[in-house]
């Protein structure tokens, strides 16, 4: 399918694919096996200007939007979803800053994120606040000299590796979610410590860590936007970042489809290649349909976000849910087509199947997002009734 990319988008996509194939494929199995953070690849991505893609030109970026970000994420995820999320999380950690930061804040942080010298991360989830993100307990008390942070964030992608964290914390405890604010915390701020790297089912090269704040003092100039808007800022952020998870799903499913097709072509049983068997053909055809439908929806949602539309909740949730459910199904079927070989760790589809599961969980579980879509449907019904 031709999605009519412009010259710059084609260049970004081609280069991302080249990095994926030349730099990621040779090491992905080892990174997964050793659960090692992909620093060399991060440096390659930085040298190729990939972290500039999602940063505005005024701050040394290339001024791309959600669509450009999706192209890079998709290409990386086609070969390793763990590398893809590491890259995407840096975008996630910068987006609130880009949207609500002052000129001074943007000048201070964005150029280093654009050059890839520093990674970013976003932290809202806590032990008591997963799907119920409004139930956070971490506080940021206003004191002389800034905000004093106390509390624990859980499951934070790029935790421990990133230098710049956008943290959602309560500046007004009494008001709950309405008293939340977004604050930038830099690594190495006294009182800011990390838990151990979590051991995960998939995306094992990516770092997921607990963040703990113990009387951690950050300057007042690190507050993003107005106090009390943190929860709304976070929800708005996810509305704009979810197509990126969709793109991660599309890339992953594409990779699995290609691997399964290759295997079916080569594997001979009953004197014929698997790919000549109708059952296998239909499985592959269904996988291809899922991948292309996901891609079309993800790109449409990304372009809708980039159009500046005010409310994109429904569209971006649909893209994330549909594409991640498809990626789960496609990767399971890819393992099935590859049979016993597919189940082995030295064949990539096994990793792809493990990597797929997280896509249905983070940035809003698919249940929570279906709830959100249903709420929109009901609201629309109420308006037209």
């Amino acid at each position, binding site marked *: 399918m031709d999605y009519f990319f412009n010259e*710059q988008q084609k*260049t*970004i996509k081609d*280069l991302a694919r*080249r*990095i994926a194939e*030349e*730099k990621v494929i040779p090491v992905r199995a080892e990174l997964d096996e050793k659960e090692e953070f992909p620093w060399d690849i991060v440096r*390659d991505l930085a*040298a*190729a*200007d*990939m972290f*500039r*893609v999602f940063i505005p030109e005024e701050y040394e970026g*290339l001024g791309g939007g959600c669509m450009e970000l999706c192209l890079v994420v998709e290409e990386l995820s086609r070969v390793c979803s763990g590398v893809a999320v590491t890259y995407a999380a840096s975008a996630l950690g910068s987006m609130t800053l880009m949207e609500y930061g002052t000129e001074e804040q943007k000048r201070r942080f964005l150029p280093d994120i654009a050059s890839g010298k520093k990674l970013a991360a976003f932290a809202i989830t806590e032990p008591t606040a997963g799907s119920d993100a409004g139930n956070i307990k971490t506080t940021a008390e206003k004191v002389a000299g800034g905000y004093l942070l106390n509390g624990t964030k859980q499951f934070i992608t790029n935790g421990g590796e990133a230098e710049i964290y956008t943290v959602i914390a309560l500046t007004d405890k009494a008001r709950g979610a309405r008293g939340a604010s977004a604050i930038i915390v830099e690594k190495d701020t006294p009182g800011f410590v990390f838990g151990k790297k979590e051991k995960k089912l998939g995306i094992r090269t990516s770092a997921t860590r607990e963040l703990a704040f113990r009387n951690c003092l950050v300057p007042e100039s690190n507050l993003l936007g107005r106090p009390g808007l943190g929860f709304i800022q976070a929800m708005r952020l996810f509305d704009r970042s979810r197509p990126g998870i969709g793109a991660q799903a599309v890339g992953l499913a594409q990779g699995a489809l290609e691997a399964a097709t290759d295997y079916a072509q080569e594997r001979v049983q009953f004197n014929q290649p698997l790919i000549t068997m109708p059952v296998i053909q239909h499985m592959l055809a269904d996988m291809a349909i899922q991948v292309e439908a996901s891609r079309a929806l993800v790109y449409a949602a990304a372009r809708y976000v980039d159009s500046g539309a005010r409310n994109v909740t429904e569209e971006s949730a649909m893209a994330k849910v549909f594409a991640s459910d498809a990626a789960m199904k496609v990767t399971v079927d890819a393992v099935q087509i590859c049979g016993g070989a597919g189940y082995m760790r030295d064949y990539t589809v096994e990793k792809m199947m493990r990597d797929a599961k997280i896509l249905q969980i983070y940035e809003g579980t698919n249940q929570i997002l279906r709830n959100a879509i249903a709420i929109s449907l009901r609201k629309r019904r109420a308006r037209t009734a």
Partner: protein
Amino acid sequence: MNIVACLKQVPGTTEVKIDPKTNTLIRQGIENIINPFDTYALEEAVRLKDKHGGKVTVVTMGPPQADAALREAISLGADEALLLSDRAFAGADTWATAFTLSRAIVKLEKIDLVICGRQTIDGDTGQVGPEMAEMLTMPFVAYVSRIEEIKEAYLRVSRMTEEGHETIEATLPAVITVAKEINVPRVPSLRGIMRSKSAKILTWGIQELGVDKDSVGLAGSSTQVIKIFFPQRIHKAEIFSGDLEKQADALIDRLKSARIC
């Protein structure tokens, strides 16, 4: 530092076919690439520039299409590009090539270092680098696998030999050819690609170089390719059978009669 990296556009395969009638390479349908050995030269030049400042100029002699190789070099970090292109340059052997390149290099702003790949994958001679050094009357080191130090007027490099490594100091300006062990070439950057699309490529012919047409190209070559052919392969395989001991004995006999042991 002003560094020149020389590169050549070559067919992107080592399995070229030869047209038996004309004795020339069949280039149809084969994508052209930067000679892989030259990518290490370019990478090293860009790294030196990043470390010591200055600029990297890439130079190639070739047909107008070689423009693509120079643009790719810009996407990989080269600052300026010079294409030596003229009908008169066609058919050059290594001598005429080195002559043309060296005449261009002396015309450039003061150069501190010239870096070439160790050889090309199509010509395979490895002669252009050293010949050029001779013509430029600059010191020359081949097969450099590490640049250890560069100071104002000299450089110290480690180079590979059959037996091991040698450390050599040479005064600058100098010419070196590099081995692939020296670095891992980067992939291009997005900004580099964008710059490469609009970059101006300087093109010089015999007039700009101020050379006589008889001193370049086929006319200026002292060697000429008369015929290219694949040596005929005569396969002779012998398969021993019987139990292992018998096979081993038979093998020893054969090696002895062939005077191998």
